[in-house]
């Protein structure tokens, strides 16, 4: 699934030569939720459709994947709906599909989770085994975890890179 060929096949922002374009802003939008990636450092960042693109079977999956190929950074993005834990579960299942040796093969150094809910979540969601398990999954894949790896916001999220 996560072969280089498949990743490129599902990339929406390729130029005429089949290479990833350098876009100033990348927007992922769904009804009431919006994610804006501001590519200030002008890297090759691919916008890849997961839901109905890269993953087309029945398994749980998140909406979008952004790959900063220059620095080896992944952004898993989920936009639909208001249920935080469903979004977490979708992202978890998607990340699980990316085998760890594949991460090393492509020199991916960092994994980021971006969840944009259509409404506000009660603030104490971090106090839960489910959140801890998401953190552990990331730690398992890339060796450690920091504050910026998981961001959960409502309605709109800006990413400045």
């Amino acid at each position, binding site marked *: 699934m996560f072969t280089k060929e498949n990743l490129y096949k599902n990339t929406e922002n390729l130029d005429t030569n089949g290479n990833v374009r350098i876009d100033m802003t990348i927007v992922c939008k769904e*009804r009431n939720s919006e994610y804006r990636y501001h590519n200030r450092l002008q890297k090759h960042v691919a916008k890849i459709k997961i839901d109905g693109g890269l993953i087309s079977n029945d398994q749980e999956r998140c909406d979008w994947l952004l790959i900063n190929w220059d620095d080896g950074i992944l952004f898993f993005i989920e936009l639909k709906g208001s249920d935080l*834990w469903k979004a977490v579960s979708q992202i978890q299942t998607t990340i699980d599909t990316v085998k760890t040796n594949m991460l090393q093969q492509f020199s991916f150094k960092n994994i980021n989770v971006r969840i944009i809910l*259509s409404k506000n979540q009660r603030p*104490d969601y971090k*106090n839960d*085994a*489910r959140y*801890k*398990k998401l953190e552990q999954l990331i730690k398992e894949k890339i060796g450690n975890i920091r504050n910026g790896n998981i961001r959960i916001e409502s309605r709109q999220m800006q990413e400045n890179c």
Partner: protein
Amino acid sequence: MQKIIMPKIEIKNFGPIKDVTFGIKDYTVFIGPQASGKSTIVKLFYYFRKFNTDFVRLLSLPLGFKTSVDQLDISHTLQQLVCKTFHDYWEHKAFFIQDFNITYNYSNQTYIKLICKNKELYAEYSTDIIKLFEESRQHLMNFRKQGKLKPEYYDSPMIVAYHNELRDKANKFFGNWNMKYIPAGRHVFPILKDQPVFIKDKFVRNFSPEINYIKSEWENTPKNNSSLITKQKQIELVQLILKGSYSISGDEDGIMPSDFNEVIPLVYASSGQQESLWVLLSILNTFFSEEKYCYIIEEPEAHLFPEAQRNIMHLLTYYVNNKCGNQLMITTHSPYILTPLNNLLQAYLLGQNKSKHDNVSKIIDPKIWINPDHFECYYVDNGNIESIVDSEVKMMNLEKLDNASRIGNDEYDKLSELED
């Protein structure tokens, strides 16, 4: 392989409970929908723990339960002991309509089994309890032969020794606990202060004298400067929750608000203050005592704002950790009671790492770290219980509590689809 924890209780078909078995840890929380059986479980636990008192009373001079030495026999008196005491707590015949059985293991060898068949209640005792009963009966028969059963002999060395031995042996089998049961609906007591009222529920009824005991213990416990300083945090928590301090002078008791110089009589205090006051005072009293306790508290969150719910859980955790052997069992409806505990569990786990210990201590007082091995949280529903502590990360998974929000979220998503 799960280690078998003692004591252990097994409940089959009693009240709303279908099939529940678990070992009892020092710090247990039950959460679940109303009428799911949380209260039934903790009441049974209380009953079996208190059984020690009834057993000893039966065999102490003057003999309890209106028995005489002649009437003391295993098949009769020991059976009746259970019937009398159990029916006292669970009066209504509705409890005995269906066949049930309940087994409480005090230890591997010591147990009591209650069986209800065809609306009749029977008890099965382990051999060590039966043996103790027989030995005591023999002693009493001997006393009678020697004519020493009269009240004037109660202080004689022989009888005193008999009582001490009986108590020691009973404590060895049943455990020796200072049991405190704080029921839901406790805020009615200040309101009904001067009205004579008969409360049917024995658990709630028993609480009325307990309130007087709490008050008098509060008044009589010496609180010198040094003990007040070491208990500073706990006292602060109580004042935060009460939004003031408890004040008792003669017959009048009330609360002096933090920002006001007059004492407001208890009947006029807020329902949150009334409901939480007894829990707070009772727990505070334990810090000034040498003994160990076992507290059962129903709904500590009653009438409290979420922040106060967090404060009361911190206070209760101070209590559990204050003395080796202190135990706590609570029933709750509120996620605000559970989420602070997740942090306390995490703090304990991180704090085991020597290099992180001091940093964790700066965030959370080590006196309220919760050791996951001594903690359990059960979700009660459909007559069963399920632990919601994730065995991998040793934190609680609150998925079962999310149903109300999930329904709300579904509705929200459907409505927002109709937005322009």
